[in-house]
């Protein structure tokens, strides 16, 4: 039997969608082992956000709300997670930038093994076996954690977001733990948010991604196509490095991992590090001038063409076909 603590992630007083993937993990493990799961919400506005996850079948909602926790830093948030984790066998969060920043600290404090960015879990008797991508997605490793407490981060694209099942989990306020040693040596300065009306890359059903070949016309070429599909815009590392796209757009082993219904790779050659971030996509369309580009080896539909002509034409034709 395993009792699982889901560490919810909040943004501006709302529960981030990635949390629903962690709830899916928790349900799988709770069902497989005959245990239960609770959800922990830490941060300013956590009490208000708790209502959003009250109907997911959690045994309890643990809420640590404090105005002092307006801006996330690992040193100020992790201690509360570490305290709350006592009595649970599995602590799960999401492989987002906050989860990846904080959860290894939680694991170290609890002397727990940590499995990062997992894509599946198997319940094997009392043992949990985690599947996780390694070597830029060129191998999957199955690992188990031997410590009494295990800490896990889940890859959002691999766990279907949980839907509410009704009911109302009881909510319980818990104290905010004292900051970690060294917290006084780190100070939040600013958050420069990339403003966009588009869906988040990791949530989008359609992604339109561009490579360095687009040069300064990156947005001019991709936006109409993205508008047609209500898509998020992504980019290869080369396009980000060259400054044609913000670094937040990067899809790949070390950027965002996406698995949308439809992925357009425009002028992207298909380096293995890029493929690692998108080859879980359901349908892949590649448009590239170079017919030998490796991207065509993973694409369902390949179009060898000058993208400056083909993409605007595709945006118009797709719009017309949608009617």
């Amino acid at each position, binding site marked *: 039997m395993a009792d699982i603590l889901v560490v919810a992630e909040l943004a501006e007083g709302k529960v981030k969608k990635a949390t629903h993937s962690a709830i899916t993990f928790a349900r799988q493990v709770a069902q497989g082992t005959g245990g239960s799961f609770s959800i922990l919400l830490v941060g300013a506005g956590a009490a208000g956000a708790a209502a959003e996850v009250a109907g997911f079948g959690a045994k309890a909602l643990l809420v640590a709300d404090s105005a002092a926790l307006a801006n996330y830093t*690992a*040193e100020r948030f992790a201690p509360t997670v570490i305290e709350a984790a006592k009595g649970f066998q599995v602590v799960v969060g999401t492989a*987002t*930038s*906050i989860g*990846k*920043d904080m*959860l*290894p*600290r939680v*694991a*170290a404090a609890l002397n727990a*093994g*940590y499995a*990062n*960015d997992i894509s599946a879990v198997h319940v094997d008797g009392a043992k949990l076996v985690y599947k996780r*991508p*390694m*070597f830029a997605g*060129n*191998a*999957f*490793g*199955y*690992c*188990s*954690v*031997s410590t009494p407490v295990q800490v896990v981060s889940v890859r959002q694209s691999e766990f279907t977001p949980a839907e509410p099942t009704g009911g109302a989990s009881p909510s319980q306020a818990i104290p905010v733990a004292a900051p970690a*040693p*060294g917290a006084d*040596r*780190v*100070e*939040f*300065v600013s*958050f*420069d*948010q*990339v403003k966009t009306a588009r869906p*988040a890359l*990791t949530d989008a059903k*359609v992604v339109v991604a561009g490579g360095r070949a687009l040069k300064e016309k990156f947005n001019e070429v991709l936006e109409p196509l993205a508008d047609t599909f209500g898509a998020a815009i992504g980019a290869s590392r080369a396009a980000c490095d060259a400054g044609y796209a913000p*670094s*937040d757009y990067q899809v790949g082993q*070390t950027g965002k991992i996406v698995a949308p219904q*439809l992925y357009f790779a425009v002028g992207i050659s298909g380096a293995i590090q890029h493929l690692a971030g998108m080859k879980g996509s359901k349908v*892949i*369309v590649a448009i590239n001038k170079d017919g030998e580009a490796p991207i*065509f080896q*993973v694409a*369902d*539909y*390949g*179009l060898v*063409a000058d993208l400056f002509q*083909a993409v605007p034409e*595709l945006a118009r034709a*797709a719009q017309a*076909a*949608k009617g």
Partner: protein
Amino acid sequence: MKILVPLKRVADPDNANKVKIPAGGATIDTTGLEWKPNPFDEYALEAALRLTENGASPKARQGEVVVVSFGPKDMEPTLRSALATGADRAIRVDAKDDQLDGALVARALKALIEKEKPDYVLMGKQAVDGDSNQVGQMLAQLLGWPQATFAATIQEEAGALLVGREVDGGVLTLRVKGPAIVTVDLRIVAPTSVFSKSTARTFKYNDGVRFAPLPAIMAAKKKPLAEVKLSELTSDTALRVEYVKFEPPPGRQAGVKVKDVGDLVHRLKNDAKVL
């Protein structure tokens, strides 16, 4: 400023699609792939060098850069290369690759750092073989130090580092005072990503990491390279995470080449049904 840079060697990441998984999946076979420094750790070393120099006169080191690696003796060329690019000395913690996991490396590094007392530890945000992204954060927790992960920019100012972190949705800036852990992201080696207090803010580095000239490669043979036993750093050598099996990812078949945009739209609508 004294900076310690943990450096891991990995199987050539540009050929990671050539890793082999023998039938049964008991291991990952990287035979035939060259050892390379983990790219993120190389970037951390470059950032450490930039923080301990005036960019306009990089030969004079203003501080000390110590590189540390875990591995058998045959990994010493990786450390010698780091010395050739400008690190002052190296430490090899003698260990076999399969006797390590991230938590063990963090425990051992903690002991080493308490002895070395660097102002900052700079390291890659993850190694590109295990893709675990954990050691820096674990180390910060064990040491009771603050952390700034996924750094894309670092500016030294008034006894602190201003670190621009690449996070979901934008750039988050932290001010962190040493001793502290900083893990670096890809763009830390862009021309204007790192400024020491003596480098002019108008200075531009070459993009990427620096290469060692031949005289520096020769001189590196004389730089100190110490060996430490893993058991001298931690008595707890139990692995927290154990791999039971490996498998290759499901193959993805190349699809069809369409003849033009009209053909593509037709197939997206009628075959893939995504329109």
